[in-house]
C-alpha cells in the first residue's frame, strides 16, 4: 500500500506527485506588470525614506519604485544592485515585515505597507532575465584577495572586490557556492534553483575564481592565505549547531534541522525525502519555522514546534509564525525538552512547562509528553572552524568598523562575525563594506 500522511514512521512519497510542486511553489509569487504598476503607485517617494534607513544595504527604495512606476524595471534593478548585488535573493528571503515594510509610512497610514519586497523581485527579475550583468570590472590592480566562504557575505565581497579590479579567489568547503542561500533558505522562498542562477549571474563580473571543496583549516590555513594574498575576507558562517544536552538526544531520528533542510534543498525530487508522521521541532528561530513548515509540506500529519520561551521572545517574526500555523504547524510556547524517549529510535519527547522569573527561565513542575517519530533540533548555530589567532567575542569573530579583525590583513563578515542580525541582507551589506575597506587599504 502506498504511503500517506497517516503512515507511521519516517516515509517518503506521503503525498500525491502533483502536491509537491504546489506545496513548494513561490511563497511570494512574482508580480506581473500590472500588479507592479499598481503596487508602485502607492509609494509616496518619502524624503529621507524610513524604508531605506531600515534596509541593512540602504537600497534607495523610493527611487527604484519610482523607476518601476515609469516603466523602467531595469533601471530600478540597477539602483538595487548598486547597493546590494544579491538584491534578487534578498527580495525573496528578507523578513521585510521587520525591515523596510515595517517602517513604510503607509504601514503607519493604512496598516498596509508598500510591497517593497515583491517590487524588488519584479525589478531584479526583469534585469536578470535578460542575462545581462550591469557592472563592469575596473582595470586589473594586480592585487589578490582571498575570500573564505561562498555564502552571501563572501560572494558580495568578492563581487565588490572584483569590480574594483582586484583578483579574487573564493574558497568554500562545500561542493556548491551560495552558502545558506543554496543549503539553508526554505525551498518555497527560492524555487527554481535561483541560488545557483544568482551566483552564475554575479560571477559574470569576471575576476573571481571559485574553488569548491576547499575548506580552510586542513592543508590550507589562514597563514598560508595571508602569505599568498594581499588580504583575506572570512565569511564562513555558522557551521556548528547547538546540542539539546538532554537525555535521549542520541536516539535514532533525532537530527539537526539544518542538515534536514540542506538535504531537502539538494533533493532532485522532493517526494523522495522521507519525513515522520509525528514531527517535533525544537526551537524558535527561522530554522525551526523552516524545518516545521517544510516537514508539513512534505506530508507529515502532525508537526509541533516547541519553543522554550513566550511568543514575544521568539526570533522568528510574527509573519513567519503565522506562516507556520497557516500551513498546519502547531506552535507550543513556554515548554522545554526534559528527555527524548525511545528504545532505539525516538518515540516521544517529554517537555516541562516554563516561565520567566526575573529574566531566568524556570520550569513550572508541570510536564507533558508528545509522540514523535522524528525530532529536529533547531536551537541555534555556532561558529566552528574559525582560524586560530583571531580575537573572538560572544562566540563570533570580533570585528570593528567595516569588518576589521584583530589581524590587520584579515577581515570578516556575515554570520561568523560580530555585529548585525544573522540575515542574508546583513551578510551582503557586511561583505560589501569589508570589500570597500579592503579596497581602500590596498590603495584602490
Amino acid at each position, binding site marked *: 500500500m502506498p504511503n500517506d500522511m497517516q503512515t507511521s514512521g519516517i516515509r517518503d512519497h506521503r503525498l500525491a506527485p502533483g502536491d509537491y510542486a504546489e506545496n513548494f511553489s513561490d511563497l511570494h509569487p512574482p508580480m506581473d506588470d500590472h500588479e507592479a504598476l499598481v503596487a508602485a*503607485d502607492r509609494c*509616496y517617494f*518619502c*524624503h529621507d525614506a*524610513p524604508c531605506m534607513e531600515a534596509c541593512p544595504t540602504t537600497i534607495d527604495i523610493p527611487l527604484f519604485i519610482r523607476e518601476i512606476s515609469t516603466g523602467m524595471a531595469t533601471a530600478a534593478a540597477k539602483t538595487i544592485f548598486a547597493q546590494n548585488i544579491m538584491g534578487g535573493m534578498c527580495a525573496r528571503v528578507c523578513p521585510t515585515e521587520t525591515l523596510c515594510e515595517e517602517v513604510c509610512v503607509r504601514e*503607519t*497610514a493604512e496598516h498596509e505597507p508598500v510591497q517593497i519586497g515583491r517590487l524588488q523581485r519584479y525589478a531584479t527579475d526583469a534585469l536578470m532575465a535578460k542575462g545581462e550583468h550591469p557592472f563592469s570590472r575596473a582595470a586589473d590592480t594586480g592585487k589578490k584577495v582571498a575570500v573564505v566562504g561562498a555564502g552571501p557575505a563572501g560572494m558580495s565581497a568578492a563581487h565588490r572586490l572584483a569590480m574594483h579590479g582586484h583578483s579574487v579567489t573564493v574558497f568554500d568547503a562545500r561542493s556548491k557556492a551560495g552558502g545558506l542561500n543554496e543549503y539553508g533558505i526554505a525551498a518555497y522562498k527560492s524555487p527554481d534553483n535561483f541560488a545557483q542562477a544568482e551566483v552564475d549571474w554575479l560571477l559574470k563580473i569576471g575576476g573571481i575564481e571559485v574553488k569548491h571543496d576547499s575548506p580552510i583549516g586542513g592543508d590550507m590555513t589562514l597563514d598560508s592565505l595571508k602569505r599568498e594574498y594581499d588580504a583575506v575576507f572570512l565569511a564562513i558562517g555558522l557551521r556548528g549547531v547547538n546540542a539539546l544536552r538532554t537525555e535521549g538526544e542520541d536516539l535514532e531520528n533525532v537530527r539537526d534541522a539544518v542538515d534536514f533542510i540542506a538535504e531537502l534543498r539538494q533533493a532532485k525530487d522532493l517526494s523522495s525525502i522521507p519525513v515522520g508522521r509525528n514531527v517535533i521541532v525544537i526551537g524558535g528561530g527561522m530554522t525551526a519555522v523552516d524545518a516545521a513548515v517544510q516537514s508539513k509540506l512534505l506530508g507529515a500529519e502532525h508537526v509541533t514546534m516547541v519553543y522554550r520561551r513566550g511568543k514575544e521572545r521568539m526570533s522568528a517574526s510574527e509573519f513567519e509564525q503565522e506562516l507556520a500555523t497557516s500551513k498546519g504547524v502547531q506552535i507550543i510556547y513556554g515548554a522545554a525538552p526534559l528527555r527524548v524517549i525511545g528504545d532505539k529510535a525516538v518515540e516521544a519527547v517529554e517537555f516541562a512547562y516554563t516561565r520567566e522569573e526575573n529574566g531566568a527561565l524556570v520550569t513550572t513542575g508541570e510536564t507533558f509528553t508528545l509522540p514523535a517519530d522524528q525530532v529536529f533540533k533547531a536551537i541555534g548555530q555556532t561558529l566552528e572552524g574559525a582560524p586560530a589567532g583571531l580575537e573572538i567575542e560572544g562566540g563570533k569573530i570580533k570585528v570593528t568598523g567595516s569588518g576589521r579583525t584583530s589581524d590587520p590583513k584579515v577581515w570578516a563578515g556575515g554570520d561568523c562575525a560580530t555585529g548585525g542580525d544573522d540575515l542574508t541582507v546583513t551578510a551582503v551589506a557586511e561583505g560589501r563594506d569589508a570589500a570597500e575597506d579592503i579596497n581602500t587599504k590596498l590603495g584602490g
Partner: protein
Amino acid sequence: MADLTSTFVGIKSPNPFWLASAPPTDKEYNVRRAFEAGWGGVVWKTLGEDGPPVVNVNGPRYGAIFGPDRRLIGLNNIELITDRPLQQNLREIKAVKRDYPDRAVVVSLMVPCEEHAWKAILPVVEETGADGIELNFGCPHGMAERGMGSAVGQVPEYIEMVTRWCKQNTRMPVIVKLTPNITDIRKPAEAARRGGADAVSLINTINSITSVDLDNFAPEPTIDGWGAHGGYCGPAVKPIALNMVAEIARNPETADLPISGIGGVTTWRDAAEFMALGAGNVQVCTAAMTYGFKVVQEMISGLSEYMDEKGIASTAEIVGRAVPNVKDWQDLNLNYITKAKIDQDLCIKCGRCFAACEDTSHQAITMSDDRVFEVQNNECVACNLCVNVCPVEGCISMEALAPGEIDERTGETVSGEYGNWTTHPNNPGGTMCNVMPEE
C-alpha cells in the same frame, strides 16, 4: 431630496447634468440608455450638411494621460463630427424626443460658414421637435482645417455673423459653444452675445499632443506612422475651463449671458463648482466615456445631498454664487496672514512637506532626528505648497492669524484691516496702480 430641476435658456430638464455633444450622444441607442440611467439632457453629436457624411480615421482616435492607479485624467481625440447620414440622425432625434419629452434634447450643428448652409439645416432640425441648437465653433482638429469648428470660433466676427444667421432663421434657442484655443475667452463670448446668442457653452477641447511613441518617433494616437494634434478634455482641463467660465461670468459685457459649463466634470462636486462660477448647467463627456452612463447617479445623489445639507432649495441658487468672489490679484487682501499648521496626530512622517519647503520654498519646516516635522512661523510665507504635497487629507492646514497677533516672520502686528496692492506703500504706482501683477 433636493429639487434638481433646471431651466436653461427656457429648456427644462429634471437635473442640470447633460451629456455633451460627443460619442455618448451619437445615436438613439446611446441616448435612450443615457436617459434611462438618469441624464437630464443631451446635446446630440454634431450634425453636418446633408450629403455624404464625413469619414473618420480607421486607426486609433484617442490618446490619454493617466494619474495614479491608471486613472484616466486627460483624454485627447481626433474624431470628427458625426459620420452617420443626416437623415438617420434626424429620424432618431425625433423618436427620442417623442419618447422623452421631459428631457432636454439639443442638437449640435456645424456646417460651412455660408448663410445658405445654415438656412438649409435649421428647419429640418426644428422639425424633429428638438429643444434647441448648439453651434460647434470649437472642434480644433480636422473640421478646423476645412474652415469650420475652431476656425470660426477663433474669429469673433465670424461667431457673431453665424449666430445672427441662426437667430434670424430659427425659433429654437441658440447656444454657442466656444473654443478655449484663444488668448481671451471674453472676446468670442462678447461676439456671441452681439450675434444674439441665448447662451454660450464652454469649453470645447484644447489643442494637444498627449504622448509620443518613442520607438517610432510619432505622436500618439499614431495612424500608420503619423499623428496629428487632437482635442484635450477630461479632469485635467477642469481648471482651465473653470477660469474661462468665471471670466465670462464676471465680465460686465456678458454677465447676464447664460453659460453651460463643460470641461472635466466628473463628480457632483465638479458640477457644483462650475455652477457656482456662473454655469446654469453642466455638460459631461469624458466621465461618461470613462465610467459609463451610470456616473450621473453619483452626480445626482451628491448634489442633492449637498443642497439638503446647505439648505439650498433649487439649483438656480447655486448658479453664480462664487462669481462676486472672483477678483483680480490686485484686489486681494495683503493683510490676511496665515501659517501652515501640521496635525502631529495625523502625520505619517513621509517628509514630503519638508522636501518641498526646504528645496523649493522658504525653509520653514524643520525635521527632527525622530522625523517630527514642524512649521517655523518665523519663516512660513503661507504658500500652501506643504498642504498640496501632503498625502494625508487634512493633516496640514492653513490657519489665519487673528487681528492683534504678531506675524513672527515680519514682526508686524496683524491689523485686521483690508489693504491691497493698489494702496500698498511698495507700489510705485501708488493708489493709481492698475498694472497687471506678475504671474
